[in-house]
């Protein structure tokens, strides 16, 4: 359980890792370069429009929301992951998939669905009004609505990363603790939870980045977050410069979050990978089974069934009006194709960076890894315009092709792959790699034949996270896609922008349906069913 600083790959970072890592971070930092160019030096006209008082209020409101969302997602995601990955919970494969699925629901769709269900005069009130005379529900607009919508869209980050870590956890540790007389709760809090810390922290980081960058939920719920103000500057003022200045404030806030996460994660590193593959025996829930089932039902019921139910209701209303339901299959194909490429590209881009940061701990490698996160709480429109800026100038024939769209996805979602791959690598003991080296393998071969297979759950999780995020990406897709390349997210937006909810709903349901098998492949690989790694 020691933090290994072993020089498995040699003491100096090899070029075959450093170069790609530098390139990846360079790409991710493009939006930051763009913002700096746009905003100009402090004191320029753009900065004058970022007044200290109102900006401080925005920062405070944003920070409050982000903290609340992180707390809520950890409270929901960690127990859920433990239940489906480590216990004999009935139907855990199904629960695992259902719990991960909300990840693919765009936050503006969950916000719309929440308003449709819980908003004033929404479905819930309709149901309650007749028998109970309920005329007013608690206000959903503002903080509660934003918190709920963002929790729905982001808790799967914590859930998936924690579940992946639980899968890689060596049961020997827990068994040892138990044999030494620890109670089950004691084992969980003293052994399991600390081992999960890097993964929970990585998941929480992704949640925080998402909450910082989200515009859809906060605008629909009318919560005054920084992104809402950034968007306002584009949409109402047509002022790219002051929008950039305000976006840089968001970057500063992100930097604080990223540093905090790095500190939490490094506070105590725990290696947990199995030296030899072993399947942990599922923990019998016994009489707690019903409580566990109720918890899963509550989470899945409110976070998946509720939005899906509202979408189904909208679809039904369309059918009632005699509108034909056309499922946008070719758009679904485009979504899967582009998102699949993005997932592959992101993982390839991220592995050198993650290995560098984990196996060659130095100030510069750690800084590089942290830098990759910093520009990624930027709202989608900022990233999209940055790539419009560079693409139109230097992209040549690549501008507005699939290639630049994939590039945009990678720039936007690389941190998700990074978080998952790092968490996966973090659980792999350098001792195993040393063994590989002593057996005469080269550095690159050890990486490929020992490290990556052991980190496979993390790598696959990273690919899946990027895939699912790209499936619902909208701002960059609209501005950078090849003309006519419609994705499901575009289709949903096209319908909601004319308030044709009865047309948007089937597309949103198809998005969830198409993502489901991928989520299934990802979430249902329970440790005692999956093939042993390595």
């Amino acid at each position: 359980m020691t933090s290994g600083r072993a020089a498995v790959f040699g003491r100096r970072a090899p070029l075959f890792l450093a170069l790609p890592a530098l390139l990846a971070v360079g790409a991710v930092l493009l939006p930051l370069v763009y913002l700096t160019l746009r905003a100009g030096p402090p004191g320029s006209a753009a900065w004058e429009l970022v007044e200290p008082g109102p900006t401080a209020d925005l920062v405070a409101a944003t920070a409050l929301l982000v903290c609340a969302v992180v707390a809520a997602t950890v409270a929901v995601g960690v127990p859920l992951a433990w239940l489906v990955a480590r216990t004999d919970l009935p139907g855990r494969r199904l629960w695992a998939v259902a719990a991960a699925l909300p990840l693919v629901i765009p936050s503006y769709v969950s916000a719309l669905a929440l308003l449709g269900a819980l908003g004033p005069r929404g479905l819930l009130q309709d149901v309650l009004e007749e028998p109970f005379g309920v005329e007013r529900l608690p206000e959903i607009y503002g903080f509660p609505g934003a918190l709920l919508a963002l929790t729905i869209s982001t808790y799967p980050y914590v859930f998936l990363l924690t579940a992946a870590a639980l899968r890689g956890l060596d049961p020997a540790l827990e068994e040892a603790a138990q044999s030494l007389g620890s109670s089950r709760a004691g084992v969980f809090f003293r052994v399991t939870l600390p081992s999960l810390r890097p993964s929970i922290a990585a998941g929480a980081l992704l949640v925080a980045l998402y909450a910082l960058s989200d515009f859809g939920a906060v605008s629909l719920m009318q919560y005054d977050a920084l992104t809402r103000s950034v968007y306002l500057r584009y949409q109402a003022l047509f002022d790219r410069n002051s929008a950039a200045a305000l976006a840089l404030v968001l970057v500063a806030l992100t930097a604080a979050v990223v540093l905090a996460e790095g500190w939490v994660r490094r506070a105590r590193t725990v290696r947990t990978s199995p030296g030899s593959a072993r399947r942990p025996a599922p923990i019998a829930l016994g009489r707690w089974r019903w409580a566990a089932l109720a918890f899963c039902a509550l989470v899945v019921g409110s976070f998946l069934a509720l939005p899906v139910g509202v979408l189904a209701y909208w679809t039904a209303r369309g059918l009632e009006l005699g509108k034909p339901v056309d499922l946008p299959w070719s758009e679904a194909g485009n979504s899967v194709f582009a998102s699949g490429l993005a997932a592959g590209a992101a993982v390839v881009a991220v592995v050198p960076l993650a290995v560098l940061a984990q196996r060659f701990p130095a100030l510069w490698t750690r800084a590089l890894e942290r830098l990759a996160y910093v520009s990624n709480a930027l709202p989608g429109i900022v990233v999209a315009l940055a790539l419009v800026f560079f693409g139109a100038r230097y992209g040549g024939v690549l501008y507005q092709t699939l290639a630049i769209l994939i590039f945009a996805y990678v720039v936007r979602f690389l941190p998700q792959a990074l978080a998952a791959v790092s968490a996966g690598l973090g659980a792999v003991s350098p001792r195993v790699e040393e063994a590989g080296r002593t057996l005469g393998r080269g550095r690159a071969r050890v990486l490929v034949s020992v490290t990556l297979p052991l980190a496979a759950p993390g790598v696959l999780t990273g690919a899946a996270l990027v895939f699912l995020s790209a499936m619902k990406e909208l701002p960059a897709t609209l501005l950078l896609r090849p003309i006519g390349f419609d994705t499901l997210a575009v289709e949903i937006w096209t319908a909601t922008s004319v308030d044709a909810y009865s047309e948007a709903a089937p597309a949103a349901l198809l998005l969830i349906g198409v993502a489901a098998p991928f989520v299934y492949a990802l979430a249902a690989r329970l440790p005692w069913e999956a093939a042993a790694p390595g």
Partner: protein
Amino acid sequence: MTALVRLGLVVAVLAASLTASVTAAGRPAALQATKLVVYSGREERFVKPLFETYTRLTGIELEIRYGDSAELAATLLEEGSNSPADVFFAQDAGALGAVAAKGRLAVLPATTLNRVPKRFRAPGKRWIGVTGRARVIAFNTDAVKRSELPKTIWGLTQRRWKGRIGLPPTNASFQAFVTAMRLKVGDERTRAWLVAIRENEPKLYARNSQILTALARREIEVGLVNHYYLYQLKEEQPNAPVANYFLTRRDPGALLNVAGAGVVSASERRVQATRFINFLLSRGAQQFFATSPGRAEYPLVRGVQPRAGLPALAKIQGAGVNIGRLGRELEATLRMLNEVGFTR
């Protein structure tokens, strides 16, 4: 090992398709006159049939990038002289004004400009209004009788409306109305109106359309919106108890806003692009905007009638302010809305 094999496959597929996409999706030579690239802030669901008609009539392929008008405006500004776009068709004057102000739209010929009344053209001749939308008070017909509605926008400050008004403070059309009001009656009276409305505790929404659905649910009783959202709502909910109320002729609340188009100055197909705009101003296209299902925009070209039941265009003078001036004044409006507490 399976993970590695999978990873390898992904890399191979990625490399192959990137090469394919570059060669296949790369833009063809810019000088081909058989196509036009249109950046459209108007919704695809609505304008697509019209664009298809254009292609049928002329044989010219339209490549249309749909998006939010403001985001497309920002895109045009970032692309600058490298823009692949030929035409910008925007939802509102503000977006067109922002692009025109940086010289990214070309001056239109008089033959095009003369098709619409002067108040619907850009002062700098770089864009032209295509259709109009009137600001109205939409109301829930179960909750309010038409005769109870105020003659002017000032009537909404009465206590009777406390907690019953819906507004979209961040919506461009609403902000254009406040700007027009400032230009007409001055900052002081506009601010007084905003403060009085604020004290009436209105419910705030992001979009006009949300106000319509809120009205249908009786979440609110009156809402300040554009007139055509009603027709959109009735497509989804034919029996919704909602109707439009047009304010008196000179009331600042009766502003007429426009959607418009301009030719991108970086375009190498400007003549063709201008012809496309002429098409949007043709009688057939104007009628399409005015009467297709769910829509009821005001045609701006002389001699084309609006949808039955709407007051004539000449009757909606609003503040009598040239809409081309609204964009420049927007910032002061936003500051005011911010100070009064409607936005941040």
